[in-house]
């Protein structure tokens, strides 16, 4: 038998393949152990320590910051931006990252042109208190930002963001700008450093204009480069379109400024109002301010006096009594009233009326602003009806305009009246109104008895231009169209023949009422005869009024103080400029000069509160305006200079006017115009003329 080969285990173990396999398996086992270890560690890290580690990782690569969306824009009716926000940058520091505080402060002081001491103190304080955020300078414009970036560049520093200076960073902010500066400053208002509205539309519509805070994240690589960004989307703020026209507003402000300066008044306000739509086209205040430079302005000028200040309307309020009496068919414009007594006593108080001491029509009475006729008319109307009409006109309650802090004025209910209250109220005392209320009330007369609620916001729209809401004003018929027509005719007589001749327009017919009232002085708790509020509220053209303008002058301290001389010229200037712009076709006579320069008496006309009690002081008051007495020498000088001027200018003016008249008009008109020019005030007419007129009118009435 052949011998079998001996199977030796040692030999088998020495089999190379077996050895390789064993070794391989050994290595695999080690690997498995290693991988197992890693797996265990990974599981531990990713499951047990997941939250802590993810936060840590996020903090390392992710920046989270909050930014505010740009505040909404305020436009005027012709899409011009009256207030808009622009992105600007603010410089801040992380004091813990700054090692050389002195050096940094020095560089910053040089570039930003601010005191080194201030910066050093801020940075040192920040470092000591371990602060990570300290403002250096806020809201810097783009050009300055670039300049600062160039100056603060340290080339050796590895920093991705600008400025390349350790510990200094930019933060994006927004700056509110008012490109038209002082234009409509009280309407638009202003916002503070934190972009929160503080006055005007900015305040009242804060919730609409406010930009939401947007949270956003940025992921950065090790070099600080941003490779991923995300943010929570928010609805952008809305824009507001006002009814204001920048051009009309500008013209109104210019005319008002001129008027206030000419009258040497404390302040002035004017409202331009569309009686048909209720849109406020302009609302001006003087003195005014620039919302871009709040620090340089006085807080008193921030107030929108046209809605926040109340005053006694004086004779402007007489129209209320007349409108009520016309509506109730108690009077007619051509009806006569006997005022020859020259005064009227109501509730034990005597109301003087030197100008109305004659037999006159109601139309004439309103034209010359007769206190007697107004009081008599109000008495005929009665307490309750007078109050109702005044209330219907919107007095005694806020108009509801979309502006903050609007005053409602004062109109007491009849149960709180004194014996003479009705008489006082008929001539515009014991009531107080705002300029806007007066304009809105006359708007009703201009709009055939329909009172349209004044509003200043035309529409609110989204940033993409789609309209969210448009304002639809409330309309109320307060008296008939016939009454309105009659009253318009009566008010046009005020301008043509009465106290408001200076409101005659070149090219357009106009109507309105002057008002001059003593100011209520809270210090002495009664009307102060040394302080006046002179106003004029009018509209044009008379037949189809396109615009109502209210002009109020607070404490005019010049020679003339009554509304006809102080406020009416402002009305004229505003109306003459804005009516052509509004494409209103002229309905009146167009001539280079309608009125010749009249000598304006220093005394106040029948508009003033002419009672017996107060009359004693009037002589002194007329002689001195706020204690400023004219000396004899000055008066003499002024008279001489006037004479010289008149001597020099007379022949020239005469020649010029004659030439112009010849060129412009036919000979028949020529005569009429000369007649008009030579016409004097009604109360200055010779007696014969008055008698003739009266007889003529009586014969007309009889026929």
């Amino acid at each position: 038998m052949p011998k079998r080969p001996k199977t030796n285990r040692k030999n088998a173990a020495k089999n190379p393949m077996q050895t390789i396999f064993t070794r391989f398996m050994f290595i695999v086992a080690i690997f498995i152990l290693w991988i197992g270890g890693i797996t265990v560690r990974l599981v531990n890290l990713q499951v047990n320590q997941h939250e802590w580690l993810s936060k840590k990782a996020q903090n390392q690569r992710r920046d989270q910051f909050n930014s505010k969306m740009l505040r909404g824009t305020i436009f005027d009716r012709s899409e011009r931006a009256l207030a808009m926000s622009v992105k600007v940058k603010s410089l801040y520091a992380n004091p813990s990252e700054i090692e050389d505080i002195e050096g940094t402060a020095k560089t910053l002081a040089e570039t930003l042109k601010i005191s080194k001491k201030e910066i050093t103190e801020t940075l040192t304080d920040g470092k000591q208190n371990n602060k990570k955020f300290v403002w250096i300078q806020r809201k810097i414009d783009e050009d300055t930002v670039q300049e600062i970036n160039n100056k603060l560049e340290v080339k050796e520093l590895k920093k991705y963001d600008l400025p390349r200076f350790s510990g200094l960073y930019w933060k994006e902010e927004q700056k509110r700008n008012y490109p038209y500066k002082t234009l409509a400053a009280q309407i638009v208002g202003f916002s503070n450093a934190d972009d929160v509205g503080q006055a005007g539309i900015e305040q009242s519509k804060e919730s609409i204009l406010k930009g939401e805070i947007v949270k956003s994240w940025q992921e950065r690589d090790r070099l600080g480069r941003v490779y991923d960004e995300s943010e929570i989307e928010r609805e952008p703020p809305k824009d507001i379109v006002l009814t204001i026209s920048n051009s009309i507003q500008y013209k109104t402000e210019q005319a008002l400024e001129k008027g206030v300066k000419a009258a040497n008044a404390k302040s002035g306000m004017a409202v331009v109002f569309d009686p048909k739509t209720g849109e406020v086209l302009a609302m001006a205040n003087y003195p005014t301010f620039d919302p871009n430079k709040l620090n340089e302005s006085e807080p008193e000028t921030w107030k929108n006096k046209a809605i926040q200040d109340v005053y006694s309307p004086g004779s402007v309020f007489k129209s209320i009594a007349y409108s009520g009496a016309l509506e109730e068919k108690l009077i007619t414009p051509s009806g006569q009233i006997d005022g020859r007594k020259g005064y009227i006593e109501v509730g034990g108080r005597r109301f003087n009326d030197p100008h109305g001491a004659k037999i006159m029509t109601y139309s004439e009475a309103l034209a010359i602003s007769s206190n007697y006729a107004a009081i008599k008319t109000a008495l005929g109307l009665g307490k309750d009806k007078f109050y109702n009409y005044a209330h219907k006109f919107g007095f005694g309650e806020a108009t509801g305009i979309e502006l903050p802090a609007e005053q409602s004025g004062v109109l007491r209910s009849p149960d709180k009246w004194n014996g003479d209250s009705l008489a006082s109220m008929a001539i515009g005392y014991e009531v107080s109104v705002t300029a806007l209320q007066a304009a809105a009330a006359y708007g009703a007369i201009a709009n055939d008895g329909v009172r349209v609620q004044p509003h200043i916001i035309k529409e609110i729209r989204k940033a993409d231009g789609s309209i969210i809401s448009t304002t639809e004003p409330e309309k109320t018929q307060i008296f008939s169209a016939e009454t309105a027509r009659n009253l318009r005719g009566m008010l046009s007589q005020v301008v043509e023949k009465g106290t408001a001749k200076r409101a005659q327009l070149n090219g357009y017919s106009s109507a309105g009422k002057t008002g001059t009232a003593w100011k209520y002085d809270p210090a002495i708790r009664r009307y102060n005869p040394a302080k006046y509020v002179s106003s004029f509220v009018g509209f044009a053209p008379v037949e189809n009024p396109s615009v109502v303008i209210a002009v109020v002058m607070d404490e005019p301290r010049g020679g003339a103080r009554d509304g006809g001389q102080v406020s009416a010229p402002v009305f004229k200037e505003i109306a003459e400029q804005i009516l052509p712009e509004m494409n209103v076709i002229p309905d009146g006579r167009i001539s280079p000069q309608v009125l010749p320069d009249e000598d304006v008496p220093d005394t106040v006309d029948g508009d003033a509160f002419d009672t017996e009690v107060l009359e004693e002081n009037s002589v002194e008051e007329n002689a001195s305006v706020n204690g400023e007495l004219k000396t004899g020498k000055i008066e003499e000088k002024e008279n001489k200079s006037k004479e010289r001027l008149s001597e020099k200018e007379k022949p020239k003016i005469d020649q010029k006017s004659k030439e112009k008249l010849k060129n412009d008009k036919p000979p028949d008109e020529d005569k009429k115009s000369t007649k008009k020019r030579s016409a004097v005030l009604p109360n200055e007419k010779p007696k014969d003329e008055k008698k003739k007129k009266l007889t003529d009118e009586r014969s007309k009435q009889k026929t």
Partner: protein
Amino acid sequence: MRSRKITTTQNRKPTIRREREPLSWKYILLTSFCGLILVVGFFGAARQHFASINYGIENSKLKKQIEELKSDQGRIKLAREIALSPAEIKKSAKKLGFVEMTASNIQSFHAETVSGEKANVNKASINKASELKVAASNKSEVEKNKSKKKDKKEKSIENKIQIAKK
């Protein structure tokens, strides 16, 4: 006992060991190909990762640029509004000699338009005349230009001749 054991082992059939075949080239190639694909895949993924990061960086740069442009636009709008403010317009209009609009201006404008309407009656003839005038003036201008060009050419030739002589 030992012998018996030996006998048992001796009787047992010898274990047959399969001879392992040497790794075939096909197998090696396939493995290396798979490995290659894996490696290429890894590289591809890494490349994509870095590319995405780069794109992200570029994207954020562009976003920043858009924001800067938007804020620039805002600033330009602001500058435009400042330039369009009535006070500025009035200043520049006065410089250009414009007059403020008044009722008398409107009337003169209306008068002009009325006269314009009357004039429309003879518009055709006037237009023809004006066209002829324009054509004539154009012709004369063309001729003038031609003569100017000729003069220039002659002058330049003369200059060249003079330079050549020198």
